[in-house]
C-alpha cells in the first residue's frame, strides 16, 4: 500500500462517524433505511433507562425486605392436624398431605430407621414437588436433580439454595400430628 493510500485510509477511519458508516453496500439499496432511525436509542437515553432500572431494583429489594420484616412481627399460628393414614405407613414409604392450608402440600416419610419425618413438598429451588426415593433413602427433586437429607431436609446436592421447610410432628396415641411449619434454613 502506498503512503498516499495509507494516509487516505487513516483519514477515512478518523473522520466523522457518519461518513465512515455510510450505507454504500449493494444490499443496502434493497433494504434502504435511515441512519437516524437506526440510532433511535442513544447512550444518554440508555443510561437514563438504566437509572430507572436501578431505582426499580432498589425499591424492589427494600419492598421485599420491608414485607419480610413486617411478616416477622406477626406470630404464625399453626393448628394441629392429624395426618390421616400415617399410622399404617410402612417403613420406606411416604404419603402426601396438606399443611397448614390446602394450598401447602407436604410429604410425610417413614424412613428406613422407622422414624417419621415431614417436610414441605416444594423444592426450594423452583418449587417443583419433591418425592421420597426409597432406594437411596433421601428426598429428591426430579426437575433439576437435587437431593435432600431425609432426616434434616438439608441440601445434599443440586441447585436448591436452602433446606426444605420442616413440618414439626408429634406422636399422640399412635397417630402422627402436624404441629407447625418451620421455614427451611430458619436459624431460630
Amino acid at each position: 500500500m502506498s503512503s498516499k493510500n495509507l494516509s487516505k485510509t487513516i483519514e477515512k477511519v478518523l473522520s466523522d462517524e457518519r461518513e465512515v458508516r455510510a450505507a454504500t453496500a449493494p444490499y443496502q439499496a434493497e433494504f434502504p433505511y435511515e441512519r437516524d432511525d437506526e440510532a433511535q436509542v442513544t447512550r444518554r437515553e440508555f443510561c437514563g433507562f438504566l437509572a430507572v432500572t436501578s431505582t426499580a431494583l432498589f425499591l424492589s429489594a427494600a419492598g421485599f425486605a420491608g414485607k419480610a420484616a413486617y411478616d416477622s412481627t406477626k406470630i404464625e399460628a399453626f393448628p394441629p392436624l392429624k395426618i390421616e393414614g400415617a399410622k399404617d405407613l410402612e417403613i420406606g414409604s411416604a404419603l402426601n398431605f396438606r399443611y397448614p392450608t390446602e394450598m401447602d402440600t407436604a410429604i410425610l416419610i417413614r424412613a428406613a430407621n422407622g422414624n417419621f419425618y415431614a417436610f414441605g413438598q416444594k423444592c426450594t429451588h423452583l418449587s417443583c414437588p419433591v418425592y421420597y426415593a426409597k432406594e437411596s433413602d433421601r428426598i429428591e427433586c426430579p426437575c433439576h436433580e437435587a437431593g435432600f437429607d431425609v432426616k434434616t431436609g438439608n441440601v445434599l446436592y443440586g441447585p436448591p439454595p436452602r433446606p426444605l421447610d420442616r413440618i414439626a410432628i408429634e406422636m399422640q396415641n399412635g397417630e402422627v400430628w402436624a404441629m407447625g411449619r418451620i421455614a427451611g434454613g430458619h436459624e431460630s
Partner: protein
Amino acid sequence: MNGDSNKSRPTRGITAIFQAKLVLMVMINLAQLWILAATIEAALARHYKELAPLVVASGVCWLISLSIIFWWKPLRRR
C-alpha cells in the same frame, strides 16, 4: 485532517465518557440484580438479619448510579 473532523473531536470524547458511564451503569444494575436475588432468598429463608445490609447495599448502588447520571459531567473545552 479537514476542519469538520477537528470539530467532531470533542464529540468523540463525550461519546467515550458516555460509553464509560453506560458500562458503569450496566455493572451497577447487575450488582443490584444479584442483591435483589439475595434479598428474596434471605426473606424466604427468614434470615432477617441479612435483609438490612442487603437493602443498604442496593441503596448505595442506587446512589452511585444517580451520581453517575446527575453529577459526572464532561468538562467543556475552552
